[in-house]
C-alpha cells in the first residue's frame, strides 16, 4: 500500500490548516460525533439560512484522517442546500464502501475523493466517515 494514497498532501494540508476548526457564534445545529473505539470526538456546528448551509465549523480531537475528513467536508457543504449536502454524504459513504466505481459520479466530492483508498486501511475507515455520519445525524 502506498502511504501517499492515504496520507496525501491534501489530507495533511487540511489536518494542519485548521481553518474550519473553531466554534460558531449562535449555531443553529450542534451535533457531536464520536468513535468510542479510537477516541475520535468531534462537534459539528451549522448555521442555516432556510435550507442552505450558510456556515459550518468543528471542534474536537482526533487523528489526522478524522480531522482532515471533517475539514474537507465542511469546505464541500458550505453554501449547499441540505438536500445537496445529504446527497454528498451518501455519495461519500458509498465511495468508502466501494459501492461506486463510476469516477464521474465521484467528481462532485472534489477534495474528498482523497479518501477513496481508505479501505486499504480498514482500521481507519471509521475515522474517515465520522464527520459525514455526524452531518447526516445533524440534518435528518
Amino acid at each position, binding site marked *: 500500500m502506498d502511504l501517499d494514497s492515504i496520507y496525501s498532501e491534501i489530507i495533511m494540508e487540511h489536518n494542519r490548516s485548521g481553518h474550519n476548526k473553531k466554534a460558531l457564534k449562535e449555531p443553529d445545529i450542534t451535533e457531536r460525533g464520536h468513535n*468510542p*473505539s*479510537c477516541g475520535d470526538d468531534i462537534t459539528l456546528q451549522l448555521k442555516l439560512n432556510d435550507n442552505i448551509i450558510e456556515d459550518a465549523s468543528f471542534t474536537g480531537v482526533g487523528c489526522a484522517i478524522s480531522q482532515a475528513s471533517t475539514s474537507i467536508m465542511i469546505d464541500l457543504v458550505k453554501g449547499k442546500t441540505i438536500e445537496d449536502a445529504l446527497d454528498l454524504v451518501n455519495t461519500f459513504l458509498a465511495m468508502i464502501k466501494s459501492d461506486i466505481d463510476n469516477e464521474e459520479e465521484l467528481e462532485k466530492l472534489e477534495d474528498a475523493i482523497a479518501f477513496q483508498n481508505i479501505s486499504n*486501511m*480498514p*482500521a*481507519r475507515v471509521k475515522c474517515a466517515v465520522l464527520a459525514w455520519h455526524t452531518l447526516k445525524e445533524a440534518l435528518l
Partner: protein
Amino acid sequence: MPKLNPHQIKEDFPILQQKINGNRLAYLDNSATTLKPIQVIEAISDYNKKSHGNPHRGAHKLSVLATEEYDLARKKVKEFINAKHSEEIIFTKNTTESLNLIAYSYGMNFINEGDEIVLAISEHHSNILPWQRVAKEKKANLKYMYLNANSRISEKEIKEKITTRTKIISIAQMSNVLGTIHPIEQIIEYGHKMGAIIIVDGAQSVPHMPVDVQDLDVDFFGFSAHKMLGPMGIGILYGKKELLENMPPYLTGGDMIEYVYEQEATFAPIPYKFEAGTQNVEGAVGLRAAIEYLENIGLNNIQKHEEILVEYALDKMLKLPYIDIQGPIDLYMRGGIISFTLEDIHPHDIASILDTYGIAIRAGHHCAQPLMNYLKIPATSRISFYLYNNTEDIDQFIEGIKKVRKWFGYGS
C-alpha cells in the same frame, strides 16, 4: 451436486488413516465430537503461520488480517444458517456457553415468578441445568415435555405443556441420545402463539441437515464447531436482533465496551456486546473452513447419506434379538444416532471391548440423566454417523457386537 462418496471423503481425514489397536478405525462417536479434514487443519495452521494478530482496533497489517478472518467467519455462519444480519451471530466457546448466555442474559432478566420454562425430557444437561438455575432464582416453573413410546413428542403433549404462562421453550432439534428429530416447527409456531420465546439447541442438527433460522422463525439457536468438522473452543449463538439488543451483557471486559469510567460503563452494539476479551480467531478460521467443506459436499447430501446408513444399521440391528433400540425404530424424522442396549451386557463393557477392535462408540448417560431416569435404564451404548462413515463401518460394528457377545459367553 456431487454424489457423496465416503471412501473418497475418508481420505481427507488424517485420523481415519490410522490403525486403532491394530484395526481399521470405525469412528462412530460423531455425536460427541467429529474428526477434522485436512482442509480445516491446514486452514488453522495457515492462519497461525500467516495472518495471526489480535483483531479489532489494531492499525497494523496482522491485526487487520485477523479482523478480516474473524469477520469472514461470522459472515459464513450467517449465510450457513441463513440469519438475516451478521450481528445476530455471536461467537461463544461451545453450545453449553451459548445456552448459558441466554439463561444469564435473557432468562435472569426477563423471567418472573410463576412463569414457565418448558424443556423436553430428552435434553442434554447443557440445556437443563441453566434453566434449573433460572427457575430456582426467579421462582419460575420448570416443566418437561415427555416422549411417547416411539421417542417422539406428541402434539397433545405440546399443547398440554405449553401455556400462556410459558415464557421460554428450549429444546434440541435432534436428541443426542435417541436421534429423534423433534417437531420444532410446530413447537415454535405454537409457542409463539402462546407468547413464549423459543430456543433451539442445534448441536446435533446443524452438522447433519440444512437449517434456516429465518424459515424456522426461531428466537435463539446454539451449536458447536467441534461437532461439525471444526475446532474445539468455538461455539455459536444466533439470536434475533431485537432480542439481543435488549439483553444486558453477560461476560464483561475488553472489546465489548463503548466508554468506561471508574464506576460505570456503556456497551458496544451487538455482536460485540456479547464477545468480551480476545476471541478465538483461529477457531473461527477453522469453523469457516469446516462450513466450506460441508457446503462443498452439500448438507442435503450429508443428510441423505446418513439416512441410508441409519436404514442399513437399523435393519441389521433389528435382526439381532438381543439388541434393544432406544429411540425411534422407523426412519421418519430421525437422524444418524442410534442408542441401544444389549441384554445382560453393560454399555461400558461393550464400548471397551469394541474399542479393542477399532470401533469407537460412546456408552453412558450421554449427558441426559433425566432421560435415562425417564426410560428407566442406567445407560445406553450409542453409535452416531457422519459423512465419512460407510456401510463397512457398520458391518465392522455388527461383527464387533457379535464378538462382545462371544466374549461374555453368549451365542451370536
